[in-house]
């Protein structure tokens, strides 16, 4: 008989579900689920914008003109974020945190900010990071995906069948032949889903659903993106999915971005019609 353990905890600003199936002892599975949640909690403590003991908070508070040592994990997320900034020609920018504060989407901790600062003012040398202008960051558009990847990392080749779902940032170690449900972005009918075949091990979806405006700030338009359709991205890693869903909202021509990161993506309209990019 198959043993199955499903747990759900409020983490990463959303609900994280972990499910594990295997014809083995329940105690063994419980240990795996616990280690996944422990990993997620540890990473959240490191990358949280809100937690005043996090590395991100320390950077935001002391990073201007100071080289601050950061962990290998945060370094990976920062390097990836800066790369996304370059490839997207500034559309993806972790310093838009200030816009989120102004719109009251995230808390105001009184971090210093210069109006013309951007991701280009973040310098990485070795394992140290420095802001060359007064600015601050929020990794809300990318860290959740990384944290899911990290939590799954030890189990990628496991015989266990594991699914981690962090509020729609979804990763499966045994994804072939599996399906995911995508919620149709119609705020009057949020109980409707379409089913898609998993095309890679990770998928993330961004949409406003109940809200008219997305928490995605487009620097080129100097405005927040409006919520109409949802965008879902399949990739090998969840961090790419997480970030690309945001970038694709802002891009008219999406081909270059899709090939650069080797991902597949589609949108879903309020009628449940799927458009593959």
């Amino acid at each position, binding site marked *: 008989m198959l043993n199955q353990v499903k747990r*759900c905890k409020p983490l990463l600003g959303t609900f994280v579900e972990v499910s594990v199936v295997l014809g083995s002892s329940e105690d063994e599975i419980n240990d795996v689920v616990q280690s996944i949640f422990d990993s997620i909690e540890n990473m959240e403590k490191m990358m949280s914008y809100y937690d005043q003991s996090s590395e991100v908070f320390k950077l935001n508070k002391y990073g201007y003109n100071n080289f601050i040592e950061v962990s290998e994990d945060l370094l990976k997320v920062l390097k990836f974020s800066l790369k996304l900034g370059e490839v997207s020609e500034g559309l993806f920018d972790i310093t838009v945190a200030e816009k989120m504060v102004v719109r009251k989407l995230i808390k105001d901790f009184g971090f210093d900010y210069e109006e013309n600062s951007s991701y280009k003012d973040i310098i990485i040398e070795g394992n140290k990071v420095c802001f060359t202008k007064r600015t601050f960051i929020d990794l809300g558009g990318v860290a959740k995906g990384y944290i899911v990847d990290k939590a799954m990392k030890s189990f990628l080749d496991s015989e266990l069948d594991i*699914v981690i779902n962090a509020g729609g940032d*979804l990763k499966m170690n045994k994804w072939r032949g599996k399906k995911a*449900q*995508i*919620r149709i972005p119609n705020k009057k009918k*949020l*109980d409707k889903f379409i089913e898609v075949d998993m095309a890679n091990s990770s998928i993330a979806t961004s949409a406003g659903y109940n809200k008219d405006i997305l928490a995605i700030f487009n620097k080129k338009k100097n405005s927040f993106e409006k919520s109409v359709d*949802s965008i*879902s991205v399949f990739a090998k890693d969840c961090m790419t999915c997480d970030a690309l869903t945001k970038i694709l909202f802002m891009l008219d021509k999406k081909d270059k971005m899709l090939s650069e990161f080797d991902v597949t993506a589609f949108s879903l309209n309020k009628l449940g019609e799927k458009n593959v990019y």
Partner: protein
Amino acid sequence: MKVGDLLKVSLMVGAVFVGPKITLAEEFLTVDEAQKVLWQSATMNPVDVDLTKEQMKSIKKSSDVRVINSKMRVWKTVDGGWFIVDKVIGKHENMDVAFALTNKGRVKGVEILNYYETYGWEVKNPKWLHQFVGKGSEEHLKLDKQIKNISGATLSCRHITDAVNRITHTWDQVLRNL
């Protein structure tokens, strides 16, 4: 309590309205399982807690969160820790949540026991919705035991944050004295 018991929704045939339609439900842990996850093998005993109106008002005042139920489902460990099962109600989502507090009133862990979303009918008053849960039984919902891997979240953590706030103030004002 099993989720099946929680998801008995009365269908008011012939009345002006029908009960809210539960469109998504997931069950994670039973109360027993959550006790083991949060407190491992610690021995715990149920404690009868029925908040007075004054206590409810006072907890609301200090936590800024409304207290809906006076009766609480509470267990105390032999070392003075706490295990509390509470219902958290949002606009479209309802969930049973287990909280573990240390003997100093600090949050040790939070586990979602189950959640369900209701759509297709305007639920303006969560208290009104509440009366439909766990009562009546003209219609038993059949739950899909398959895991629904959903990409596209609508659930907000805000209600959990509120509940944590309310529970810790409840410890401060009531439980610590028991």
